[in-house]
């Protein structure tokens, strides 16, 4: 599980089906599907949801988790990622890896004998996030194909949005991309989904939320701007507040990868259309499915 590009539609469907089975297990006494297995959790970057949900998933399956702390490990002495992976691979049955370098998970999976699960490699991939996004949409709406989905925010920098567009295009959703003109999705991503899936997403800078089944929001990455005021202005124009949601469908599902800052104000959290905390919760069954299939095949 390194990149969403490695997965075919059938394989993604199989993960989503497995995640649905895992969700049912959550309400039963502790499962022992991965009893006796040891999983390494190696997070070289801060993480709340991904880290905690992988740990919860492993524990719910009866596996033991070994946590690697880069600050107090030999990484602090200058040990390479390659050496660290080779060594830890000898201790465990699977490795969950988050690393700031793009391609780190591919590199690790080439070296390790056990499965490596990419929990985010810099600005590149975060495949389990894409799976949980697709799982959430399918669970809420019963399907993905034909749904009208808007992706809103900083579409240029957010890896989540690039991977999700890939997944949505694969399943035949009708995607609209809403962003400031300067933060549009890269042309090469659009060319790829057109070539592979025949998808041609609509692009707009108009903040009109009427008619969508799903609205997926991400924050404007202010740290990427040399002028913070410019970022602030863009964020204000593309804020999803109750006023902006007035024209939206009653059965709209508002999703967000979290953490959210001010792109969605707190009052929206109480709107029944806000589904982002439920989405985050889905991280557990989806990651249970990923761990189970990685280890037990």
């Amino acid at each position, binding site marked *: 599980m390194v990149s969403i590009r490695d997965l075919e539609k059938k394989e993604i469907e199989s993960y989503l089906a497995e995640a649905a089975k895992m969700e049912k297990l959550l309400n039963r006494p502790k499962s022992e599907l991965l009893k006796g297995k040891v999983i390494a959790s190696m997070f070289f970057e801060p993480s709340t949801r991904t880290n905690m949900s992988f740990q919860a998933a492993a524990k719910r399956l009866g596996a033991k988790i070994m946590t690697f702390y880069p600050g107090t490990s030999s990484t602090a002495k200058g040990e390479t990622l390659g050496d660290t992976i080779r060594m830890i691979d000898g201790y465990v049955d699977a490795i969950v890896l988050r*690393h700031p370098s793009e*391609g780190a998970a591919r590199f690790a999976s080439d070296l390790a004998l056990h499965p490596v699960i990419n929990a985010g490699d810099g600005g590149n991939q975060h495949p389990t996030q894409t799976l949980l996004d697709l799982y959430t949409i399918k669970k809420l709406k019963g399907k993905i194909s034909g749904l009208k989905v808007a992706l809103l925010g900083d579409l240029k920098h957010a890896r989540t949005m690039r991977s999700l567009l890939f997944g949505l295009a694969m399943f035949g959703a009708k995607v609209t991309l809403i962003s400031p003109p300067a933060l549009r999705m890269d042309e*090469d991503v659009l060319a790829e989904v057109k070539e592979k899936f025949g998808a041609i997403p609509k692009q707009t800078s108009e903040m009109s939320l009427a008619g969508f089944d799903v609205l997926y929001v991400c924050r404007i990455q202010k740290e990427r701007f040399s002028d913070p005021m410019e970022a602030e202005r863009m964020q204000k124009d593309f804020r999803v507040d109750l006023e902006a949601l007035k024209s939206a469908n009653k059965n709209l599902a508002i999703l967000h990868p979290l953490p959210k800052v001010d792109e969605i104000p707190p009052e929206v959290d109480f709107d029944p259309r806000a589904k982002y905390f439920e989405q985050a919760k889905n991280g557990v069954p989806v990651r249970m499915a990923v761990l189970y299939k990685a280890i037990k095949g």
Partner: protein
Amino acid sequence: MPLNVQKLQEGTVIDHLAAGTGSRVLSLLSMSYPISKVAALILNAKSKKSGRKDIVKIEGVFLDEKTTNQIALISPSATINIIRKGKVESKRQVEMPKTVPGVLACPNQKCITNLERAKTTFLLAGKGQLRCRHCERLFSADELV
């Protein structure tokens, strides 16, 4: 004034290079092969196909697959002519390789291949573009060579 360039007896003629790419090809060859014998670089020669072309001739050198792949990345229109005993023994057009393993550096400084001892691999992604197998960024062949 016509320009006369000595005929090769044993060696390689790289013909139909896109105009402006000949010096890069010669520079590439000089990294892979010790060019101690005769070598010629012809720039902006007339071409029926493309109007202008560059040509590289090297005595005593026969290209391996790795170098041929690199030439394809620089100029996909190039042809490789093998010369034996003063005559053209074989002629073939270069092909853009589907994968380019272990030759090119990834221009993305955040790519793990620039930070660890990792061999790069680039995968052909259509229209002269290649995707880094590690960081998955897309580059034009021109950016990589």
